[in-house]
């Protein structure tokens, strides 16, 4: 046991002391949080940062003269010219686009020297449609107030009714948390599993393995390596979680402040824009992104953080133990990394399969039969279960999945160790699956 500790120590410290570990540990949360912050910042400040486009409008219908107000990055200027002369003078006019609205509002054209971006096009389309709709309804004799009432959007608030009472069920957040957790597990199984495999190959290729297993049993060496590298992964995750919490709290307050400012500014802008028909326009205007951000920040708190993190750590560790044992066996069977290809399929297949199914199916149907099965099978459950956990998993299922997971990694470790002890001493022999089966059957 003492010797296993020595091996764990070496494996752990030789990796943690590396510069790349430090860089990864600090850079990843800083980068991800700052890109998160940047995203919200850009969303909130879009109108200020974006490139202003000036649009000359020739409105032959006369419907838009007072309603089409400047929005975000678009400045509308109504032209007194008719379409022909506006078109003729357009290239020298200094406007970016020329919007031509014929009298019947059909065959609207946007002319420009360059192609307009999809966002610009969509923005103008939405605005025109809204205004045209309101105008037509008003013409049909519907009152402005009735119109505003009719166009008020409906938003649904999901509520979870459980034995503990009513919980605000933020589906979007469950979605994101499940996605991120499953993605992290998927990535880390590959990253740390491959580290185990590379470590085994290094020992085999450099032949140091023969010296070491004259001192310790192959099983001790294998487990020492797996546990050591697993602890490296755990350290990294714990540091990431702590750093992310600290940074996101800081970022959260920052965003809240920003959002506050942005919302007031936007509201003012909206009110300004409200002409006779403007009120309706602002009522159906797309939801202000900054207030969305605050909402998300608030609803992140609706997910039980400690429970999710603990489940994440369990599924990371057990999944890692299960897969890294297989990775170790593969490493022991080959003489260099390029030869590992033929054995990688059985490792990557269940992982990629679960990942794809998880992202497309389980995340939308967390309680379907297929989802439940996938979250029980040890090869697939680390990813499948992590997707389900933010949506709430009945505890008998969770316990069963965890027990199966533990049994699963005990089994793969046992199988892998039997292949490993023979494999590490076989130099220059091309291993096939048949060969591996033979090694597995060797007595001692």
């Amino acid at each position, binding site marked *: 046991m003492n010797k296993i500790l*020595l091996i764990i120590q070496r494996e752990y410290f030789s990796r943690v002391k590396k510069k790349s570990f430090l860089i990864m540990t600090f850079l990843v949360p800083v980068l991800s949080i700052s890109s998160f912050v940047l995203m919200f910042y850009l969303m909130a400040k879009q109108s200020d940062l974006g490139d202003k486009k000036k649009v000359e409008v020739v409105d032959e219908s006369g419907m838009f003269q007072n309603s089409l107000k400047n929005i975000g990055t678009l400045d509308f200027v109504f032209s007194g010219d008719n379409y022909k002369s506006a078109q003729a003078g357009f290239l020298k006019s200094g406007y970016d686009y020329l919007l031509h609205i014929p009298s019947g509002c059909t065959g609207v054209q946007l002319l420009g020297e360059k192609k307009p971006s999809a966002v610009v096009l969509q923005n103008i389309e939405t605005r025109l449609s809204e205004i045209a709709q309101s105008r037509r309804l008003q013409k049909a004799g519907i009152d402005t107030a009735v119109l505003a009432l009719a166009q008020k959007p409906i938003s649904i608030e999901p509520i979870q009714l459980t034995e503990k009472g009513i919980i605000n069920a933020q589906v979007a957040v469950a979605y994101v948390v499940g996605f991120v957790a499953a993605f992290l597990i998927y990535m880390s199984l590959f990253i740390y599993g491959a580290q185990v495999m590379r470590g085994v190959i290094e020992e085999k290729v450099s032949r140091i393995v023969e*010296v070491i297993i004259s001192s310790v049993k192959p099983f001790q060496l294998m487990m020492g390596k797996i546990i050591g590298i697993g602890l490296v992964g755990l350290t990294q995750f714990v540091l990431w979680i702590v750093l992310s919490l600290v940074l996101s709290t800081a970022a959260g307050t920052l965003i809240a402040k920003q959002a506050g400012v942005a919302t007031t500014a936007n509201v003012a802008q909206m009110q300004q824009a409200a002409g006779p028909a403007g009120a309706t326009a602002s009522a159906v205007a797309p939801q202000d992104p900054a207030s969305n951000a605050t909402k998300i920040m608030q609803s992140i708190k609706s997910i039980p953080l400690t429970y999710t993190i603990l489940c994440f750590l369990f599924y990371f560790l057990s999944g890692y133990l299960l897969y890294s044992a297989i990775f170790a066996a593969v490493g022991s069977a080959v003489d260099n990394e390029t030869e590992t290809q033929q054995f990688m399929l059985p490792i990557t297949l269940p992982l990629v399969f679960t990942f794809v199914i998880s992202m497309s199916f389980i995340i939308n149907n967390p309680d379907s039969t297929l989802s439940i099965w996938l979250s029980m099978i040890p090869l697939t459950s680390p990813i499948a279960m992590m997707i389900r956990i933010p949506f709430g998993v009945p505890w008998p299922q969770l316990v069963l999945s965890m027990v199966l997971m533990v049994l699963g990694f005990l089994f793969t470790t046992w199988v892998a160790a039997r292949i490993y002890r023979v494999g590490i001493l076989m130099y220059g022999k091309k291993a096939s699956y048949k060969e591996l089966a033979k090694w597995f059957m060797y007595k001692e």
Partner: protein
Amino acid sequence: MISIRNIVKQYANHRALDNVSIEIEKGKVFGLLGPNGAGKTSLIRIINQITAPDSGEILFNGEKLTQKHISRIGYLPEERGLYKKMEIGEQVLYLARLKGLGKEEATRRIKYWFTKLEMESWWNKKVEDLSKGMQQKVQFVATVLHEPELLILDEPFTGFDPVNAEIVKNEILELNRKGATIIFSTHRMESVEELCDSIALLNLSHKILDGKVKTIRNNFRNGIYLFEFEGNSISGNNNLPFTILSETNHDNSWQLKVRINEGSRVNDVLQYMLPLVTITKVEEVVPTMNEIFIQTVSKAI
């Protein structure tokens, strides 16, 4: 020290060791010889408990070999290696601690050995920064650090320049004088004659020869003598009590290699030659281990 008894090791397609028994005496240098693929490495791995035999047993000082003997054995494999990215001092310390040495004791001994072999400045270097010979030296230190009673050295001199090979050889002999038993596996027969007290020769999974080096060489004496004399050639004569293998001549001085006929002795040859020539040198040509090796192995095939 080590009794190897009826060891059989079967792999899927071939038998690596077939009923091999060898006795290794305490405090001696024992040569384990054999062509490639004879089963030497398999046997060494079994003694190191890296693999287990299918049948047969090994006794270490009379008791059955178990894991507790690991700390009393030092093993230098033929294919050797170290962690490339690890610092030398740390690495040797790690290997020593795996053998069961305490941290302080191991550090003290590493310092002693590093000073002795002039390696002090290597402590913080990485293996990849050392030459191959230097790495071998590090590995040698790692092998002997825990002062094993049994030292198993597989081709210990490969990779060394003559100076360092001599240094390492002297260290091995000194360890032997201090009481370590040494199993020495090699192809270099001249070093076998120089170092080994006894040998065992393995070929095609079988032990085909073993015993003291002197006894073996005596057993392989085949009546070949070398004469140097002055005078005339005697190759033309009839009724010689010997067969001439070769005769060369330098300025009236002859060198004659002969095989004495069955039933004759060297004295008969001398009696025959004395009246004819002036003898300056007589020497028995005892076969070298190299010749014995080749002769025995090729006969077995």
